[in-house]
């Protein structure tokens, strides 16, 4: 942590410390009872659970068992690795014999060096008459008695999608047990805009980029997807013949459903975390974009802000009592916060070009996109930053990677998904809130404006 390998590295570590500190606060406030454990688990180094996850064995000779076990094993490993709360024991340290059920477990060889694991997950995958059966266990192998922490059985139709789904569910069980009770995100979804049909439509994917599917078929331009807290409806901005309107896609019905239109242009919707309100930007009142709030049905729209060029509202999901948004009222866009009745306006940034605020699930942090040192001849990138709202301290999350925008928090507050053109075209990337585990989730067409589901 304090090792110096050069000036740049020292700076980087300082940044990392701040983020981890924020992370501790972030989870610490969720439950005071769990605070001590959380601090340990979000701390660095040996205090993170050290988990061994040998491949689950195939339980029978059905020809589907092997391929489905492969899908399951890759998905489970990635989910645990992505969770950001484990030290993954390198597979080269594993003993030659791995158990497929508890009777085969020799806990000592896993708990002792070289694996030196704290916990071990193992199990088996079999296919029986068209169904895939998975048995999975989690054991505390450091403990003398090696107690079982978890034992689960799953049975679904034997398809690769279901093998992935079962792995996600089992990973979420493990993460919930070892991650201080904060549910895992392996079953969460990310909604985004993609050009791959030729025009911008809303798509969805699993949190790890698998299973990408087109949702809307608007045929013009669809922007700014925002999933409802219960995951049943998706609000977005759609271009009609003569204006932008907030539109509503039903995940249950698989189509866009009726939603009231307003005068002027209406875009950038946002849900309150209780699902009862929608905030959005509209020019219906003055011809300029202002922040409005309406019932989830779209009725009863009231104006909250009176600035010029107000967009991108987002509720404080912890209280729904505040809204952060972007305004160009003083020139270049900056981040503002106001109470949900429009009072108590505070300017949160006062330099550069700051857009796309995203409020962390615990209400304590704002992620946003920022060209920090903006000016003629300054060609710095646009990066994702995190602000601790109470102290207004800011840390930089992405570095030197082109234009980054539209951060969105994972339900557990440990990950951020965002768009970046660092690969040459706009694509969706995810990263842990401590800046590690950067990964590209989309590759086909241009993809933008990711929005992570509430759960």
């Amino acid at each position, binding site marked *: 942590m304090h090792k110096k390998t050069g000036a740049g590295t020292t700076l980087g570590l300082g940044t990392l410390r701040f983020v981890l500190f924020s992370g501790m606060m972030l989870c610490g406030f969720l439950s005071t009872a769990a605070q001590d454990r959380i601090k340990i688990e979000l701390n660095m180094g040996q205090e993170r659970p050290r988990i061994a996850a040998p491949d689950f064995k195939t339980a029978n000779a059905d020809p589907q068992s092997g391929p489905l076990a492969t899908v399951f094993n890759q998905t489970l490993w990635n989910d645990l690795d992505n969770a950001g709360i484990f030290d993954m024991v390198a597979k080269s340290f594993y003993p030659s014999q791995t158990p497929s059920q508890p009777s085969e477990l020799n806990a000592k060889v896993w708990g002792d060096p070289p694996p030196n694991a704290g916990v071990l997950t193992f199990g088996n995958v079999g296919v029986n008459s068209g169904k895939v059966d998975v048995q999975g266990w989690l054991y505390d192998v450091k403990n003398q008695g090696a107690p079982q922490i978890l034992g689960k059985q799953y049975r679904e139709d034997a398809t690769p999608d279901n093998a992935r789904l079962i792995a996600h569910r089992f990973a979420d069980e493990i993460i919930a047990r070892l991650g201080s009770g904060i549910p895992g995100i392996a079953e969460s979804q990310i909604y985004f805009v993609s050009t791959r049909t030729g025009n911008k439509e809303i798509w969805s994917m699993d949190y790890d980029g698998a299973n990408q599917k087109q949702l809307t078929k608007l045929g013009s331009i669809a922007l700014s997807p925002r999933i409802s807290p219960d995951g049943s409806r998706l609000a977005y901005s759609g271009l009609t013949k003569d204006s932008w309107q907030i539109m509503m896609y039903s995940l249950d019905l698989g189509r866009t459903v009726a939603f009231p239109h307003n005068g002027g242009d209406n875009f950038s919707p946002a849900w309150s975390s209780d699902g009862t309100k929608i905030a959005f930007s509209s020019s219906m009142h003055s011809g300029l974009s202002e922040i409005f709030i309406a019932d989830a049905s779209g009725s009863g729209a009231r104006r909250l802000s009176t600035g010029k060029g107000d967009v991108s509202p987002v509720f404080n999901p912890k209280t729904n009592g505040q809204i952060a948004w972007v305004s160009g009222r003083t020139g270049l866009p900056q981040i503002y916060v106001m109470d949900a009745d429009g009072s108590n306006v505070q300017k949160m940034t006062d330099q550069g070009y700051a857009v796309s605020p995203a409020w962390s699930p615990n209400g304590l942090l704002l992620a946003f996109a920022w060209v920090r040192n903006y000016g003629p001849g300054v060609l710095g990138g646009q990066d994702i930053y995190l602000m601790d709202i109470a102290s207004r301290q800011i840390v930089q999350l992405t570095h030197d990677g082109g234009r980054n925008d*539209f951060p969105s928090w994972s339900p557990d507050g440990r990950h951020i998904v965002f768009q970046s053109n660092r690969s040459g075209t706009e694509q969706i990337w995810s990263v842990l809130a401590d800046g590690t585990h950067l990964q590209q989730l989309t590759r086909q067409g241009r993809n933008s404006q990711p929005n992570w589901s509430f759960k």
Partner: protein
Amino acid sequence: MNNSKSIRIVVLGVLVLLAVASGCKKKETAPPPPPPPKAPTATLSANPSSIQRGQSATLTWSTENATDVALDGNKVDPSGTQTVSPTQTTTYHLTAKGAGGTQDATAQVAVTAPPTPTPTPAPTPPPVTDDQLFAQMVKDIYFDYDKADLRPDSQQALAQAAQIIKQKGWRVQIEGNCDERGSTEYNLALGERRADAAKQALIQGGVGADALKTISYGKEKPVCNEANEDCWQKNRHDHFSLLH
């Protein structure tokens, strides 16, 4: 192992027999005199054999039994290809010389004049439609980066445009646009301000607010797709459409 060894023995035996057989054959005939050198052959073709001026053709040739091959006097490989673009009809001449003599071949590339474009008759000016008049009189206006303030020339242009819009009783849609650098959502708001700036200027010029509708396309409908200031400037504009 045993099989391959026995095969090897058999093969060896056959070779010995052959050697003995050929060695016993008595050479009775004297070596024949060397054959007379063969006459060289040459072919040359042009593809296509007829081109329009400015186009090119490929010459392909091949020879046999030649030691000295020339195309129009220039030494070339015994066989090969060459691209030519003669400006007039040309006959190419291949010469292949060898111990057995000389052989010629020719190929012609005919060159024709390119067709002269038939002059289109000067269009008789049709009666000026409202759309044409609108396009002449109500032109796009341009903005500085992240700004929605009208430039002085835009203010002048809009004052003139207001006159004809008012006079003709037109209804106009003003479309605000931004370059690609800003953020998607903020650019929609910026485009709104750009459209509204033109709307206010037209209202000031006497056009009724009811005759004017605004929409922002943000950066969603660029007219130019390169990442340079020329292109960005083209995209930072208000476009005007006549509503029917």
